[in-house]
């Protein structure tokens, strides 16, 4: 055989700087997102420490607003999105029998601009006037006329993140469409590949809209336009329409790959095929389609005409149908399987429970008249943490434990993994369940201090948040421990119930895989 096909990675730093290897790039994406996850988590810890009791103890309101803004931005754009892009980079070629991503050089670039974007974003903390303080939704005119000077750096970093996401998405689309192994028809693709293909189209469709929103902000701030200022004939509500036209599909950009992960893992540990593969694919596609028609459910109190309220309420309720189909499918897959409960499976079951609760509160929020009470209260905070954290973070954690042996050739510590699950599950619920009560009882979100009747549940929530934060440190420890001192595994399948091309490869997966495409029957 020709020696070239077997060359390993380059040595030293240049391996990572110049790499075009999908496994290297996937690895970097995931480590980067973990670092951002810890950073965004640290911001959250500051928020929860301040909210531990009434009164201002730790930080001033100005800094509090900076923390909640950076927490949101870093978690959404720095932790969750790159984590799934990294997972896609690593796994999609191995799942469809391709040697690498279709556009490997662009792949390198789309990763390497990210650290610069976030370095710039976080550096605003040290600028005069402080970092952005207008929330991750950055509503105008708070984010334009009334913003700190650092807003310009924020805009630039959003642009870079957007470019990175779009390039990543284009790469995934090109790979899935062109590089499937012979015989792998669309309806034979693993669910994770399907959900990512649809997510990638969502990204290409809405990231430019976000870029448009921040560009209009930039024009308003520096070039005298008035897109979002009524004084110059513009409209602050226009900002919200543009933002949420991006923002709602963004929710599915975050959650669809999570659905994919769960649809891979549950059949493995139930030792039974996914109940309704076809309906899962159609459900994913309909969720993606509907996600473009519901954006104004974030704006029920903005003073829309009644026809708008009704349209967006009905359309939003409709999304519950395909989402329900997903949950029913997972449960039916488990039904009459032969289940074992390794760490990835535990996280998937946790995902189903918590995501379903988040789905229920989502239906409640979709009821426009009731939203007049829920809107901008802690009820919303509880809701989106149930779908975002339980949805994306639980499933990502499941994915890490599930594929880690394939990546490293070492087995993680099962007891430590299970312990982490229980700490995370209990901490998460302690942190976020009481927030439903707080919101219903009238506590607005994004406040640094609260009326006395909210004291007890806030205290509980803070304690839960610290516990949940601790669980993430344990995750990092467990992964590093596995790489350094895990028990070696050689079985290509790793899990006896695992299905799919990645499990036909040797363990650990070599640097180059499927240089000759496999035959899929």
């Amino acid at each position, binding site marked *: 055989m020709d020696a070239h096909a077997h060359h390993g990675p380059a040595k030293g730093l240049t391996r990572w700087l110049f790499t075009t290897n999908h496994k290297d790039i996937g690895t970097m994406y995931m480590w980067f997102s973990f670092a951002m996850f810890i950073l965004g988590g640290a911001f959250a810890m500051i928020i929860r420490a301040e909210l531990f009791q009434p009164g201002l103890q730790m930080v001033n309101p100005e800094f509090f607003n900076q923390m909640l803004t950076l927490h949101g931005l870093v978690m959404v754009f720095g932790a969750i999105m790159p984590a799934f892009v990294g997972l896609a980079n690593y796994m999609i070629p191995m799942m469809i029998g391709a040697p690498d991503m279709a556009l490997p050089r662009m792949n390198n670039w789309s990763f390497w601009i990210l650290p610069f974007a976030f370095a710039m974003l976080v550096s605003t903390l040290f600028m005069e006037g402080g970092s952005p303080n207008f929330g991750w939704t950055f*509503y105008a005119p708070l984010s334009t006329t009334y913003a700190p000077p650092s807003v310009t750096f924020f805009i630039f970093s959003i642009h870079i993140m957007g470019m990175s996401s779009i390039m990543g998405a284009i790469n995934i689309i090109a790979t899935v469409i062109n590089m499937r192994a012979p015989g792998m028809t669309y309806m034979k693709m693993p669910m994770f590949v399907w959900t990512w293909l649809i997510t990638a189209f969502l990204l290409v469709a809405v990231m430019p809209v976000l870029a448009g929103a921040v560009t209009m902000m930039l024009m308003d701030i520096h070039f005298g336009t008035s897109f979002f200022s009524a004084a110059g004939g513009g409209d602050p509500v226009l900002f919200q329409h543009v933002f949420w036209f991006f923002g709602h599909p963004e929710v599915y950009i975050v959650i669809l790959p999570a659905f994919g992960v769960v649809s891979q893992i549950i059949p493995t540990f139930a030792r*039974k095929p996914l109940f309704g593969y076809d309906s899962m694919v159609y459900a994913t596609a309909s969720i993606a389609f509907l996600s473009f028609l519901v954006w104004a459910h974030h704006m029920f109190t903005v003073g829309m005409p009644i026809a708008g309220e009704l349209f967006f309420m009905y359309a939003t309720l409709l999304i519950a149908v395909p989402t329900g189909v997903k949950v029913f499918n997972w449960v039916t897959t488990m039904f*009459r399987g032969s289940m074992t409960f390794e760490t990835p499976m535990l996280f998937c079951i946790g995902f189903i429970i918590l995501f379903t609760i988040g789905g229920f509160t989502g239906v409640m929020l979709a009821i426009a*008249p009731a939203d*007049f009470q829920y809107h901008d209260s802690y009820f919303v905070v509880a809701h989106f943490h149930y779908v975002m954290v339980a949805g994306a973070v639980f499933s990502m954690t499941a994915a890490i434990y599930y594929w880690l042996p394939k990546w490293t050739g070492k087995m993680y510590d099962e007891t430590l993994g299970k312990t982490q699950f229980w700490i995370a599950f209990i901490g998460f619920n302690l942190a976020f369940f009481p927030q439903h009560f707080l919101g219903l009882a009238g506590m607005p979100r994004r*406040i640094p201090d609260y009326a*006395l009747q909210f004291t007890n549940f806030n205290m509980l929530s803070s304690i839960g948040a610290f516990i949940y934060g601790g669980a993430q440190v344990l995750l990092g420890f467990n992964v590093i421990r596995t790489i350094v001192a895990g028990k070696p595994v050689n079985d290509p399948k790793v899990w006896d119930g695992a299905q799919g091309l990645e499990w036909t490869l040797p363990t650990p997966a070599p640097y180059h895989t499927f240089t000759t495409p496999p035959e899929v029957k």
Partner: protein
Amino acid sequence: MYQKAMRLYRLALGPVLLLLSSIGSSAWAQGPTEWRHPNQVNMPVGVTEVSAQIHSIHMTVFWICVAIGVAVFSTMFYSILVHRKSRGYKPSHFHESTKLEIAWTIVPFIILIVMAVPATSTIIAIYDTEDADLDILVTGYQWKWKYEYIDPAGENISFFSSMSTTPEEIAGTAPKGENYLIEVDEPVVIPVNKKVRFLLTANDVIHAWWVPEFGIKKDAIPGFINEAWARPLKTGFYRGQCAELCGRDHGFMPVVVSVVEQEEYDSWLTAKKEEAAQIKELMAKHFTLPELVQQGQQIYNRVCVACHGPNGEGGIGNALAKSAIVTGALDETLDTVVHGVPGTAMQAFGGQLNDVELAAVTTYIRNSFGNNMGDMTQPVDVFNFKKGQ
């Protein structure tokens, strides 16, 4: 000790309380103070028809979700307990069932329609702002509310409503009062059993006016006017907060509505109008320097001290002692006070203080903290200055 135990007990019972509260929801409708009790876990029934309707939809949807949740989770936990490898359960290999899949698409769809029907009628009620007995213009400012009663005869009265919780309470150097952060210097007063329409707008950024017991939350947007209405059926104080992130003191701009009997409202309104007439009279008056300085000091300590410090030494705001603007041309000082400095924390006080107050505070800062300008600004000067703009 007992209290502490009770608190823990209530805390542990939170979720149970949520369930109970819905069963006996009438028990929770005892009034505004009842609703804002520690460990409150549910939405208020409130004191308007709309808020009660919202509460009932909320509970309906909640129970439907509970029912679906019980069905899904019990199926799942049943399999988790029974269909496990450790019990030697052999996996079956069934998948796809068109009948089942059609069922779990159609049934949720029908349930959603059941939810959407009452929701639609309530939203129609919320939007019916016609035929109000009273109109109040509510303007959000960073970080206070202004209420203006629209009078058919053109004799509008207006006032600002700011949080009255002290900085010491917030910093923890003074004990926190019962209504910590949800109390104001002057609540908005409305009559009971009357349809009151609130016209909402904002002066700077977007705020949101929220009174949970009225079922009202509506954005106050600069340059636009939104409408909301309430017909409160019970007298009392109803408290809420700004709900849209609006900058530094977003957490410190509460809403307090005092609902009173018609007679009480009428006499309150008369008193307010008299007060307004008095101010008008004062506007024409010529004050002496000590009078202005004395009055200006009170205003300074109420409005300016938080940013500029008790001795004009500065803080969040610039120092006023020996400041170039304060010791410069009088018009320049007045201009800064009236129009603020855009893009900074220095607000435009021209619309927030009346001309007497503006005159007094301008005179005060030019004659204190070692600034001995010796000049005066009379209310009529402020009036002319504003007119000349």
